[in-house]
């Protein structure tokens, strides 16, 4: 059991963005879909620690992380990407990825100031690992590039590479295919499958139905802050409530 929530809920000033929501995640690729305002990003922000819940608990690998700050959850192996890119634009592409590995690195101020050999070694390893990761996600062309000189599609993959640098057990992908053309989306498809095969549990929020249906083993559908379906793609496709939620009327 990688992730479990117990009545996890969030309200903003009296408006419930997420009704008490319980679910468990063992592994594989799970997608969370739903119309806008359904509570998907709220859920992600609760899981990664950006929002404090109005109620409920979150368990990650058996540990109650509800009160832990973002960095602590990341240290335990939970990573995420963002809907609105949060790239470090002042740094080079490879440095972005190197920062992703921070949870494994020594971050003492004094050793850093004095350039102790361990620090130098850490940097060398981090750079090698980052290079390796960038190749893995198909960013070979940008190994020497600055982040602010990269196209949108590449930046989306860079964020994923950065998250992978932490060798996460759980990866939250927030709309990884948003704004990508079909061939770029295909690459993301391949990438996500490879990540899951590597043993990382993937939870993704996505609007691209083709991608979702193609790669997910399990789909959870949210509507207005509560789940209305939870199962394999085949069962979701035909689910009448899901169709109603998206189209607002009974299925033909």
């Amino acid at each position, binding site marked *: 059991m990688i992730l479990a929530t117990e009545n996890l809920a969030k309200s903003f000033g009296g408006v419930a963005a997420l009704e008490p929501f319980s679910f468990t995640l063992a592994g594989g690729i799970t997608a969370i879909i739903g119309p806008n305002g359904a509570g998907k990003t709220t859920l992600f922000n609760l899981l990664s620690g950006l929002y404090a819940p109005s109620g409920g608990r979150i368990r990650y690998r058996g540990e109650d992380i509800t009160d832990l700050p973002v*960095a602590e959850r990341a240290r335990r192996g939970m990573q995420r990407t963002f809907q609105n890119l949060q790239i*470090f634009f002042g740094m080079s592409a490879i440095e972005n990825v190197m*920062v992703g590995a*921070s949870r494994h690195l020594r971050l003492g101020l004094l*050793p850093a100031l004095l350039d102790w050999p361990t620090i130098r070694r850490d940097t060398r390893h*981090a750079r090698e690992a980052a290079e390796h990761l960038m190749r893995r996600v198909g960013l070979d062309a940008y190994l020497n590039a600055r982040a602010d000189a990269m196209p949108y599609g590449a930046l989306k993959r860079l964020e994923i590479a950065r*998250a992978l640098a932490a060798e996460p057990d759980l990866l939250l992908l927030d709309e990884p295919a948003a704004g990508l053309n079909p061939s770029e989306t295909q690459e993301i498809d391949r990438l996500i499958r490879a990540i899951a095969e590597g043993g990382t549990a993937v939870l993704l929020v996505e609007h691209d139905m083709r991608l979702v249906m193609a790669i997910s083993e399990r789909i959870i559908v949210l509507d207005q802050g509560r789940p209305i379906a939870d199962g394999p793609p085949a069962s979701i496709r035909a689910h009448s409530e899901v169709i109603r939620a998206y189209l607002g009327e009974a299925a033909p």
Partner: protein
Amino acid sequence: MRRRLGRAFDSGAAGLVLLILALALLPLGLANNYAYDIAIRIGLNAVVAVGLNLLIGYAGQISLGHAAFFAIGAYASAILTARYAVPEPAALLAGALMAGLLAWAVARPILRLSGHYLAMATLGLGIIVSIVLNREVALTGGPDGITVPVLRLFGVALHGQAIWYWIVAATLVIVVWLSLNLMRSAFGRGLRALADSEIAAQTSALDTARMKARIFVLSAVIAAVAGSLFAHAEGYVTPDEAGFLRSVELVTMVVMGGMASTFGPVLGATLLTLLPQLLAGFEDWHDLLFGVILVSTMIFLPRGIVPSLRERLRPTPEAEL
């Protein structure tokens, strides 16, 4: 070969060597005590600016009150050595400690703020310190300041600007070296990351609050050390050293010379300390010129002189010097 040279440039090693050479050769051009005075002033400003740059340029924060830490170091050294016959190195440590403790105490709550609020909070802190230094006449000598006795090390009186030049030069080299090391490390990358997106930095398992606090304290301690050296080199400290205008000057040195660049602030300190000298006889015009330079730099070279120059010369830099 070219790649290795490039790597050397990127690691700042070349810059450091150049700096050492420049500092070693400079005295050949210093004709009299007055010139030494200026060189020492430039050096001390550069030390503070390099430290402040860690906070402003790399960590992306702002401090409009850093002169206060400089002054704390200066006054600690001055008062302890003049009144209580404390040995100078101990007084310097005491000053650094006091500045560090103050910075530590306010760091976490203040650095939770950002943008204008952070600017105002640091400004408020700086002004309060400056007012205290002005008003507590019994302790600090008030607006008239305090005279500092000549530094004695192992019984030998350290007279003469030449000695102070070398002490300050050595300090500058050390601080530059520390800064270069820091920026090459994971901590340094983490700082630059949190400047761009604090949320993503936290998601990358960086304890941003703690990192910001530490760099704030570090830059405060560096400023205090420079202040202590200033007290002895100058022989005199006044509360003006803590004022808002001094803090603005320090920020200008960082911003104009180049943020996110260890050598930029050195350049900025040099230019801005020399400015009044170039305007000798036209003191009234100093403020006006300073203001115009400041505004123009921010409009035309928003990243500062060194990074903008570097961008022209090498289009794809990696780690910043």
